Structure formats: structure tokens, C-alpha cells
């Protein structure tokens, strides 16, 4: 047994209102730079829908993740090492910018500079890739809220698996939001696809990162990840991905997407797992057994044998304590309501989801039934083939039973708690029907519905004795850095020593706020974007130059 600690996340989909706050704050923090305009480390997609990039779940097309070869051994679906090297000169499975979307801005200047004319001038869209006028025809959430679903949803690879009759009739329509970040997998196929070994899994907390100094732009990781959560920065020629906000979690703060989530639906905690058994568990023959297999590599943090083995591996005491209090462990094991996203990709994803009960409740409400009555809910969960089948394709490789089990628990919680709220007597039979106790249901309700901050995020700090080695500190004072993030060096913007991340963000934000023209490294200095001005100070270019003041 080789115990390792892993930071993991659970998202409760019933509470996602699809507001995209998480995506926007993440983008502001991490990908508001040239070259990453199209990149959303966190994106929220409406299901059914094509997702971002389009139809990324269609692994027959994109060949992400792992599969079993004829001898039952794991192999990269896109091909082994030799095949990778032979196809390195042009990756046949690389998504193009159009598969994500062509990022754009607007020609705002037209609004001011247009000559007097009969019609109101308009700000036309311009591509951030070519700088030319463009017609916007796709984006990271073009099919938000089922927009265009009659034409678009039939191409949803998950929906296609569920029903042969792909047009969703109005009566069958259901929808929910699926926020996605990198899964920080236990068996990451992105890391395994990287020819130069620049990608790695941090042994302390399992965060999967790209070493920007070692990445050589072979772009095989983009293909390797079945969730398409490694992105290619087309300016720097390097891969980038969700960092699990390591500078924040190292000091015990939740990730930006979690911190800002309006629905407060994200949970972060530690999971202990047995690294020696990952490959074996990822190689079980039956896709549908992968959910249980993945659970089986996760260790019980209360088990004295596990604690002893973890200590032997040098996992600090406060991390073990955090593992015992982990909301993730509770949601996966104690309450049994969290499921992995696409376990059939065999990467052992570590961002899990509580599937939404809302499609079921909606059907009941629309048909005039009481959507909080346990009997009605249980009946509907058993009867609604399409939504359950769909959720099962997302979370359990198509096996509807675990999804039904989770939804029944959520349904039980719903009606059990309603009785309490209405001042009625607690009904233990509801809890018993789903194999829980009233007490257990109330504990689950507390974690899911009330969800105090300190219980949602149990994040042990990186160790103080390692303080000097933390990313930002190790660079000395982060302000003793000369110049911007390498822009304008002898080899263009991708040169020079790497800037400490804090400095890079500072400069990027400043450049961004000081420019309102097309995202071009050479033209960033311009006027102030009033949307980002907080009213303090007088940034250059905000006010017209005043002759008197200057003298």
C-alpha cells in the first residue's frame, strides 16, 4: 500500500443555476491573457448539449483517455508511445480553434469614430485570432439553456448513446448545468501523453500541472485528455491547464471557482488513496465496474492501518486530520451521493458530481404532481428512462442503478426534510427506504443545503517547513522582477525568464485594463476600460491631457 493524498472536489448539480460566475472569475484569475482568449479552465455547459469543445465526449472521434488492449492492459486510446512520436509532426487528433470557438472582441472604436450618418453606428465583432471582421457562430456556451437545441442537441454524444430517437420532444425535454474543471485524475492520460515529461502530478496533493519551462509544444496532452481540459496557448506555444488554484489551496483557501460559486455547490477536501492499486483498478474489464473500482482505491481515513501507512509515507498529521473531516469522503462514502464524471475514460477523475434530481422534480411539477412526496419521486425516478439514462451515461458508464440510488437518496432527503420544515413528525420510514437513518439524512442535509464554509472546504495548508519552497516565495520578493511577462523580448512574448505568477497576473491585468483595442501584444497600451476602473486614482489616458496641469 502506497498512500497518497489527493485534493478532490464534488459539485452538487442540483444547485447550479448556470450563472457562469465560476467561469468568469476563473478566467479573470488565470486566462485573461493573449493566447488563452478561448480558454476556460472552468466552463459550464448545458446538458443535453454539445459541450466545450464541441462533442468532446465523442471518444471515437477524439480518442482521449485510455482503453484496454486485446490483452486487457491499459493503453492510450490515441495510440502508444511509438505511434505518438511518429504522428508528432502533425497531430491527427488535435482540435482546431473552431472546435472550441474563435474568440472575438468588438470594434468599439467605431461607436466614437464613425462619421455622421443616418444609421446608428454599431460595434462589429472582430476575430481575436485574425483581427479581421468575423461572424460569431459559436462560443464556449453557445447552446446555453438549450438554445438551438432542436438542431444542436442531437449531436450531443451522450444523448446519442441514450436514445436512438434523438429529437427531444417537448415533453421529454430536461436540462441541467454541468460545470467542469480539470479532473486532476489519479491516472491522468494527459500526463501519460506528454512526450517531454513536462506534465506531472504533484505527489503532495495530486494536482496535475504543466511545467511551462519543460513544455515543448508537442501538443499531445490536448489529445490525451478525454475531458479536453488541457489547452494550447497559441501565442506562447505551450500547454496550459487548470491548476486547482494551487497558490490558493497551498494557503488553505478554496479555488477561485469554488469561492465565488453563487450556488455554493462546490466541496473541496482530501482523499487518501492507494497509488499502487490505481492501474489495476483502471484496468477492470467492465466499464460499469469502474465506479466501484475507483471507490476501492480510495482509503478509509479512519482506518488505523491506513493512518499508519500514511504516516510512513510522510503525510503530515494535519493532512490526515483533514482527510478524516473531508466532505468529499463523506459525500462519496458516507452519504453515497457523489459519482465520477465519465469513469469509462479510465483516468480515475477526482472531481465528482452529485447528479441533479431537478429533471425528475420538474417532470412531476409539470404534470401536476407533488414534487416533494417521496412516493411520487421514487416512482418517477424509476419511470423516467431518458433523464436517468442520460445521467448514467455521464456518471456511471451507462449503469442506471447507482444513479437511481443517488437520486432516491436525494428524493428521500427532500421529502424527509419537508416534513420537518412543516412541523410534522419525522418519518424514519422514508430514510429507511433508501438505507439511511433520519440522523444521517439530517447530516447530509446540513452538508448539502446549509453547507457552512468551513465544512464545504477542508483544505490543509501546505507545510510551513516547506514554506520557502512554495512557488511564489521561492522567487524571493515577487516585486524584484524587472519588466513585464517577457513581452517584447528577443524572441517575442514567449521569452525571457518566467515571471512569478503574481507579477505576471499583475502585468496582464494592468495591460488588459489599459487597453480597449484588439488583443495584440503590440497594441495593448491604450485607453482605460471603464468597466474595470474602480473609481480610484486617475489612470493614464482616462482624462484628457490638461495643458495647465502638465506644466
Amino acid at each position, binding site marked *: 500500500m502506497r498512500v497518497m493524498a489527493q485534493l478532490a472536489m464534488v459539485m452538487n448539480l442540483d444547485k447550479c443555476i448556470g450563472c457562469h460566475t465560476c467561469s468568469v472569475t476563473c478566467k479573470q484569475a488565470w486566462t485573461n491573457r493573449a493566447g488563452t482568449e478561448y480558454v476556460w479552465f472552468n466552463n459550464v455547459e448545458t446538458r443535453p448539449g454539445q459541450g466545450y469543445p464541441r462533442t468532446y465526449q465523442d471518444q471515437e472521434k477524439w480518442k482521449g483517455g485510455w482503453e484496454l488492449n486485446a490483452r486487457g492492459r491499459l493503453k492510450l486510446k490515441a495510440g502508444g*508511445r*511509438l505511434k*505518438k*512520436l511518429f504522428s508528432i509532426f*502533425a*497531430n491527427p487528433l*488535435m*482540435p*482546431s*480553434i473552431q472546435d472550441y470557438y474563435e474568440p472575438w472582441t468588438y470594434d468599439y472604436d467605431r461607436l466614437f469614430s464613425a462619421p455622421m450618418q443616418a444609421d446608428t453606428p454599431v460595434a462589429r465583432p472582430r476575430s481575436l*485570432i*485574425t483581427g*479581421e471582421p468575423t461572424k460569431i457562430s459559436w462560443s464556449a456556451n453557445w447552446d446555453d439553456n438549450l438554445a438551438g437545441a432542436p438542431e444542436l442537441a442531437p449531436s450531443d454524444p451522450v444523448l446519442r448513446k441514450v436514445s436512438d430517437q434523438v429529437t427531444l420532444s417537448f415533453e421529454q425535454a430536461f436540462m441541467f448545468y454541468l460545470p467542469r474543471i480539470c479532473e486532476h485524475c489519479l*491516472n*491522468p492520460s494527459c*500526463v*501519460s501523453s506528454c*512526450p*517531454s*515529461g513536462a*506534465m*506531472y*502530478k*504533484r*505527489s*503532495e*496533493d495530486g494536482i496535475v500541472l504543466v*511545467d*511551462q*519551462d*519543460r513544455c*515543448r*509544444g*508537442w*501538443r499531445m496532452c490536448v489529445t490525451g485528455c478525454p475531458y479536453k481540459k488541457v489547452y*494550447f496557448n*497559441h*501565442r*506562447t*506555444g*505551450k500547454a496550459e491547464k487548470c491548476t486547482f488554484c494551487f497558490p490558493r489551496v497551498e494557503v488553505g483557501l478554496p479555488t477561485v471557482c469554488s469561492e465565488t460559486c453563487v450556488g455554493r455547490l462546490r466541496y473541496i477536501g482530501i482523499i487518501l488513496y492507494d497509488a499502487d492499486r490505481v492501474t489495476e483498478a483502471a484496468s477492470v474489464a467492465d466499464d460499469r465496474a469502474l465506479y466501484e473500482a475507483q471507490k476501492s482505491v480510495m482509503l478509509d481515513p479512519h482506518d488505523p492501518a491506513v493512518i499508519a501507512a500514511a504516516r510512513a509515507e510522510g503525510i503530515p498529521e494535519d493532512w490526515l486530520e483533514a482527510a478524516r473531516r473531508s466532505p468529499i469522503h463523506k459525500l462519496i462514502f458516507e452519504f453515497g451521493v457523489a459519482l465520477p464524471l465519465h469513469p469509462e475514460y479510465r483516468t480515475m477523475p477526482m472531481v465528482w458530481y452529485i447528479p441533479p434530481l431537478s429533471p425528475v422534480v420538474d417532470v412531476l411539477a409539470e404534470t401536476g404532481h407533488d414534487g416533494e412526496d417521496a412516493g411520487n419521486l421514487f416512482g418517477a425516478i424509476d419511470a423516467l428512462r431518458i433523464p436517468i439514462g442520460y445521467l448514467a451515461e455521464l456518471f456511471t458508464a451507462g449503469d442506471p442503478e447507482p444513479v437511481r440510488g443517488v437520486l432516491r437518496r436525494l428524493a428521500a432527503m427532500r421529502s424527509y426534510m419537508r416534513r420537518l420544515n412543516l412541523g410534522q413528525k419525522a418519518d424514519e420510514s422514508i430514510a429507511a427506504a433508501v438505507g439511511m437513518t433520519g440522523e444521517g439524512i439530517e447530516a447530509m442535509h446540513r452538508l448539502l443545503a446549509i453547507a457552512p464554509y468551513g465544512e464545504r472546504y477542508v483544505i490543509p495548508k*501546505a507545510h510551513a*517547513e*516547506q514554506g*520557502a*519552497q*512554495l*512557488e511564489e516565495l*521561492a522567487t*524571493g520578493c515577487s516585486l524584484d522582477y524587472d519588466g513585464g511577462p*517577457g513581452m517584447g523580448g*528577443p*524572441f*517575442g512574448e*514567449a*521569452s*525571457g*525568464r*518566467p515571471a*512569478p505568477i503574481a507579477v505576471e497576473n499583475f502585468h496582464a491585468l494592468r495591460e488588459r485594463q489599459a487597453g480597449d483595442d484588439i488583443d495584440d501584444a503590440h497594441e495593448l497600451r491604450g485607453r482605460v476600460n471603464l468597466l474595470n476602473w474602480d473609481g480610484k486614482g486617475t489612470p493614464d489616458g482616462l482624462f484628457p491631457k490638461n495643458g495647465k496641469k502638465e506644466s
Partner: protein
Amino acid sequence: MNALDVLLWVVAPYVALTVFVLGHVWRYRYDKFGWTTRSSQMYESRLLRIGSPLFHFGILVVALGHIGGLVIPKSWTEAAGISEEAYHLVAVVLGTIAGVATLGGIAILIYRRRTVGPVFTATTRNDKLMYAVLAVTIVLGLVATVMANIVGGGYDYRTTISPWFRSIFYFQPDPALMAGAPLLFQLHALSALLLFAIWPFTRLVHMLTAPVGYLTRPYVVYRSRDEQRAGTRAPRRGWEPTSR
């Protein structure tokens, strides 16, 4: 042997070699972040998928051919029982095929660079210079070979150019050997020297980090936060890691 010969066939090669080696060392230390293929496949895939493999496989065979022709002395192949005619035939046939593939590939790549909007926008001045020198070198090499072997009566560079090339590495350079070579070969060699001199400062650096290690390393890479910090300078005095 005049001063120009010494300049061209002694001084220039050593300058180019030194710049090549020190330039890579410097670039690696100063600009690891810029060390990348700067792939443009996100912008355009159709042409790249023809042009890039054609060019790369071509140039790799060409490179092997150069090693065979320049580094391995004629006496060795003769000792191995390979006759001059056989050697010549193989070299010319293989060389021409690889050369044409390389040329076709680079033509497609340059055409793509120029005509595909986003790719052209992402092309730096540095890229343009690199492409110019690279293309000139390839064209000159191909023309020299064709002129000498197919149009002309054949030229045995293995008795002149190859010994000169090796003499550079023994540090006993013999410019006279090269001074007598046909003009086209001389020009090809000079433009190649220029290519090597600018190599470390262009995107061509990606060749030196060709990921052969991938064949043997374990699939999943684990790294500890403290043993190898990503993307940072070496710790400053007083900030070195203390004992664990």
C-alpha cells in the same frame, strides 16, 4: 590558399559551430519558456498534416544522409565492400527522394504560413528569416546535387567536402579541400553555416529536445512540490530549502 578561403572555410565554420553550441546553452538557460515548436496546428490542420510530416521525415532522412556522407570516410564504406557505384546510386536515389520530399514539404509549409491568415499573423520576423535561410539551404543542396550528378558527370564530394568537414572537428582545418569544390556546393555549405549560426535563436531549437525519452519513461510522472519547482528561478541566498 588565400585569406578569403581561410575566412570562409576555417573561420566561418568555427564561428558557426561556437554560436550553435553556446547559443543553445545560453538560450536554454535564459529562455526555457521560449523553447517550443510554437505549433500552429490550432489555426490550420489540413495543409500542416501534409506539409509537416513530408518536410520532417524528409529532412530527417537528409540529415542521416549528411551524417553518412560527411562523417563516415570513404575508406570505411569501401572496406565494408560497398563499391563507389553502389554507394553513389543509393545516395543519389535516396537523397533525391528525401530532398524532393523536404522541398515539397517546406513549400507547403511556407505557402501555408503566407496564405492562412492566423498562421501568417503568428509568424514573427525571426520565423521569416529562419524560413529564408532554411529554404535557401535546402534548395542549394538539391540544386548542387542535381547539377553535379544528374546534369553533370557526377561529383565525388566524399574526396573533398567530406574530409574538409571532418578536418574541422579534428581541429586541423584544411580549407584547400573546400576551395576547390564546385560553387553550388560552396554556397550550400555557406548557407548551412549561416543556418547553424541562427539555429539557437529560432524555433528550430525544438529539434534538440526531440522527445525520445518518452519511449522509456513511466507513463505517469510524479513530482514533489519541493524537489523541483516549476517555472521559478533557483532559490536566492538564504531561501534555499532547509533540511526536510
